[in-house]
């Protein structure tokens, strides 16, 4: 299928970004329905293995909706999540998956609009590829 709609997997966090994604729904801010969210306690808990599994299974893009500086566990969260991204980018390169298919941005607990913007942008970007 040449024009298959891309599928995006989002790792959201229980206390910070998931409430923002809920809020987007509450405000009926639309984003592509091919965005699927899986919730984790903290963005620095996402294993590279899970991300690679998503690509293996056919997801076109993976987005980590990170806690950023709002993380209630530790201030090292941003740095640790970034580390996961760069580590996974290396593994993706080995498998021939373009690194731009894995993105991260901090989504605060009320950043509904920013989430929607990220999703629309990411879906457009993946469709063009």
């Amino acid at each position, binding site marked *: 299928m040449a024009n298959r709609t891309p599928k995006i*997997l989002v790792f959201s966090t229980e206390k910070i970004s998931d409430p923002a994604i809920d*809020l987007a*729904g509450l405000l*009926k801010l639309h984003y592509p*329905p091919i965005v*699927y969210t*899986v919730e984790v306690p903290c963005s620095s808990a996402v294993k590279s293995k899970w991300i690679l599994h998503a690509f293996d*299974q056919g997801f076109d893009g993976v987005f980590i909706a990170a806690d950023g*500086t709002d993380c209630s566990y530790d201030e090292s969260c941003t740095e*640790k999540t970034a580390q996961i991204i760069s580590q996974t980018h290396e593994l993706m390169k080995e498998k021939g998956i373009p690194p731009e298919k894995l993105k991260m941005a901090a989504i605060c607990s009320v950043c509904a609009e920013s989430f929607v913007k990220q999703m629309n942008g990411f879906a457009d970007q993946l469709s063009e590829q």
Partner: protein
Amino acid sequence: MAMEEKNKIGVYICHCGSNISDYVDVEKVREEVAKIKHVSISKTTMFACADATQNEIVQDIQENDLDAIVVASCSPKLHLDTFKNVAERAGLNPYNYVQINIREQCSWAHSDKPVQATEKAIQLVKSGIARVGYSEALIKTKISAENVVVVIGAGVSGMRSAIELADLGSYVYLIEREYFVGGRVSQWGELFTTNETGKEIISRLYHKLMEYKNITLFTGAEIISSTGTVGNFDIQVKIRPRYIKPGCKVDPEKLQKVIDACPVEIPDVFNFNLTTCKAIYKNFESEFPEIPAIDPDHCTRCGECEKLCDDIDLGQQDEFVNIKAGAILINTGYDPYEPKTGEFGYKEIENVITLPQLKRLIELSGEELIYKNKKIQNIGYIYCVGSRQKDGENKYCSRYCCTSTIYTSIVIKNKYKNIHNYHFDKSIRTYGKLELLYREASENGDVFLQFWDEDPPVVSRNGNGTVVSIKDMLTNGKELEVDCDLVVLVTGMVPRQDNKIADILKAPIGRDKFFNEIHPKLRPVETVIDGVLISGACQGPKNISESLKSSLSAASKANSLVKKGEIELKPTIAFIDKNACVWCDECMKACPFDAIIKVQSNGKDVAEIVEAKCKGGGMCLPVCPENAINLKGYTDNEMEAMITALAD
């Protein structure tokens, strides 16, 4: 556990009135998921959360011996606990339940595309079924808890928390770093709205505090270590010597003689360095505890005071006390922002002072307001110094300062004759009933001039005087100059400079450098460290009334944690596959809570999770090169099964 263990799964898909079913064909979702092999019951329901439905689910679980359930409805933030309780009532482990959000994250988000929303809902519910298939029955660990709370900081907020906790039946250790109680509030004079002075409020609280047998107050005391976890913290407190015998009955005249005899003269921090004090001191006569103190950091042990008074004992040593406590309440307050040298002329132009200094100056003055031997007539207040910084780190508003400045300007107007107040502000924030003060000040004839962020006022010398120049926003940028005998920098609140306690308790600090709560609205006084609570201005700028509201909230939260004598711990914590672990220490380094330790197992070093310390954040998971760590409820099996189902 490679195999799916659950084979009798119940699935409930909620209409949510029409919130879901208007956009998602819930019957179609049911039909699709009913085809999955291990699903033995699948139902749609008008309101899954309704009592009747809850009872029906309980009945289904019991009659059909279901081993797991999935409810597809609203956000788990609303009803996760509701359905966990349903499972529990039916005798099913609550962790064999998964909630799938098909409202906020599906029907509402995609109300523009009902066909795709239905497709997405099917995938989402399938992923929940896949996840619950690997779910493990988790048991909450119970540990015993001491009904003892350590309150750190005996300012207005800490004292009020201590009284509340004692009333609720907890034993309280109130620990104050200074030699006297009262914190910042004891430094202030009259306060809005009751016109009581800070001293009066503190004195009232102190006398009340002394009535309780279940409160122990330590002054000159600091926590130097804390180990253990919620319910059972082991806290070591160091109490510095006061060099005064505890039985001392203070005779004010004699005390003055002793103070006069002390040869050590140091800047008086209680008066923000406007005056000096001696190594033996009491900040004001009615200060508590009643007996004075000798500052060991400045005392030279010359012995002049001992010659005059038998109650002085320079031989006293540090004392150490060990406390076992169930919870800790941090109430350490704030420091006023200290302007940089040259910031609006501070420390370069002699009549530039801060708002806290002005308040002390009023307290120290008689019938006339005099600074550096000059009678004050024109006062200029420059607002937002150290707060709402465009370029600096302090982006926040300090909340109390507009009100405090305006109230101080009113006090000045009432107390002294012929004083003119000029306010240079960035817009006044006297919210709620505090607005009445703004009106009163305006009616008093105070002049309010407003500046832009880009164009702050400039303070400069003008012959013998000082002039404040401003481009006034309210008169369309007109350049004005005001001669001022006193320029007051309205300084905001910053976190305590000496904040060792944050490291000792590993309490999280937010991006504004104040202590950080779990959630500003839903869990405003708890930190991620179970059993460590925060309240008052250590959490962020607050006025006194707001501080007390948070301290009462934190007190009741602390009491409710420990009063039962036992605490349940969250079971979704990390666990180590000891066969796979090769102890590289990466997980230990990644854990912010010291919850991972090295132990011996089958003749090799391996990592072990200290269950009571693990917060289940999962920072250790991705760093393990052997993939030997999993998080309960978020295991590789569960996560990958979900992802597979969603990708399908």
